[in-house]
């Protein structure tokens, strides 16, 4: 199996407190991997390690090794801006910029130095299409992104992440603030994008993990308890802690 990212014995400390303990997890290329577990288990902390978002948190220290196509992302030589282009991120709450729909998607391209307006227009349209929102916004690309519904704003944020052609997309509970129809559209987008893109999604919604992911990893109290194919995790998990969590028998 070909892996896009590999984490080896990754630990995270906030000051003296260990939030994540020696997590080793590989992400198959083109697959969707869901990270599940109760609040505070370390799954979002782990997700943020994958594009060094934890660098922005004072007193946060990361140990271990994370490889993106065999390149160590925590090394001194890694360009963090380039890393975040290759490993994009979509957050829990849609966070469009107070700009037009078009400029939201074009933003990443401009930051990365693309100046050709024709090229930018083509890439914006392609990204909006891949995020399955182009048909809904094609006649109002110059309108403010803030006028879109919550679900549309989230898909716009996905388009914004896709415009710079990342290899990996990190999603931190991307549908938790959305209604069921908007959630379904996001999930359909995830399935459409899988194959071309490696997707790593944190979710509290067990059914969502079961629906969208190929692999699932269960975290508990800063430890990776179990990881396997999603079909296996949701039909016959090997660890009792995993079974207790996914069946709701968890205090």
């Amino acid at each position: 199996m070909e892996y896009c990212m590999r984490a080896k014995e990754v630990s995270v400390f906030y000051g003296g407190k260990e939030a994540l303990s020696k997590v080793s997890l590989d992400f198959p290329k083109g697959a969707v991997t869901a990270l599940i577990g109760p609040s505070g288990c370390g799954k979002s902390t782990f997700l943020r390690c994958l594009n060094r978002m934890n660098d922005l948190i004072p007193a946060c220290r990361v140990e271990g090794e994370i490889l993106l196509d065999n390149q160590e992302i925590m090394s001194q030589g890694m360009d963090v801006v380039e890393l975040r282009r290759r490993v994009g991120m979509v957050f829990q709450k849609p966070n469009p910029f107070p700009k037009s729909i078009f400029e939201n998607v074009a933003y990443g391209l401009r930051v990365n130095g693309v100046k050709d307006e024709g090229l930018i227009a083509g890439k914006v349209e392609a990204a909006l299409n891949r995020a399955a929102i182009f048909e809904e916004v094609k006649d109002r690309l110059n309108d403010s992104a803030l006028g879109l519904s919550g679900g549309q704003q989230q898909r716009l944020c996905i388009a914004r992440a896709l415009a710079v052609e990342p290899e990996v997309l990190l999603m931190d509970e991307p549908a938790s603030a959305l209604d069921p129809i908007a959630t379904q559209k996001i999930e359909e987008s995830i399935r459409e994008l899988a194959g071309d893109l490696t997707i790593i999604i944190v979710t509290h919604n067990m059914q969502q993990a079961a629906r969208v992911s190929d692999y699932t990893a269960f975290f508990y109290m800063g430890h990776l308890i179990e990881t396997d194919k999603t079909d296996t995790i949701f039909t016959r998990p090997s660890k009792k802690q995993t079974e207790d969590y996914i069946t709701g028998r968890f205090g």
Partner: protein
Amino acid sequence: MIKQESYIEQMIVSLRTRLLVMGASVEIAVDNMKKAVTDLNVGTAQAVIENDDDIDAMENEIDASSLALLARTQPVAKDLRFVVSVLRMVVDMERIGDECTSICSQVVLMKDGDKKQIMDYVGEHLNSATEAFRCALKLMRANNAEEALTMQHTDDEALQSEVAIIERMMRELECNDHAADHPDPVIIMHLILLVHSLTRIWRRSANIAGHIYFASLGDSLKHAPEKMKAERLHF
């Protein structure tokens, strides 16, 4: 981790209770069918036939409860395996009820037959089939996966037992033309149908054991005896 009662657990307990009630009802049908065959008792046979509608109704009720549970709680892991097993087990139990009805219909048609001769042909098979169901029910109550695996292997034994009985009947029909205890061909015809129904009860009981194993450990034993037979032949 602290275990807590949840809505899904309550629904699972309720479904299990309904399954056990259905099991007890089918057990009564099997016991009465055995009495009806042993004594050629038409009254008991007719009671089994009349009560089959209740078993059918229980199957429908459990189907509806299982569907509601799936729709409302989207169970996973052991809960999902349990619901899937219940949906399979009720089909087997309902068919066992049907087989009891078929056997009792044969009893009504054989009411003037020779009790001793009939039991001589089918007594052992009757005991084995009813014991298989009793055993499956016991495993279901105890949720005993280990013994369920052993019982799954009796499927082949049921077929061999049926073949041996039919071969004996055919042999005696052909060879004892003038003997005083020559079997009545009409009774033999009823007995063949009866033996076939008993085999089905035995094999469906083995199926129930397979479902118990699946619910507990997640491994499917479907068609396992055929696979094992093929492996034996291969080597």
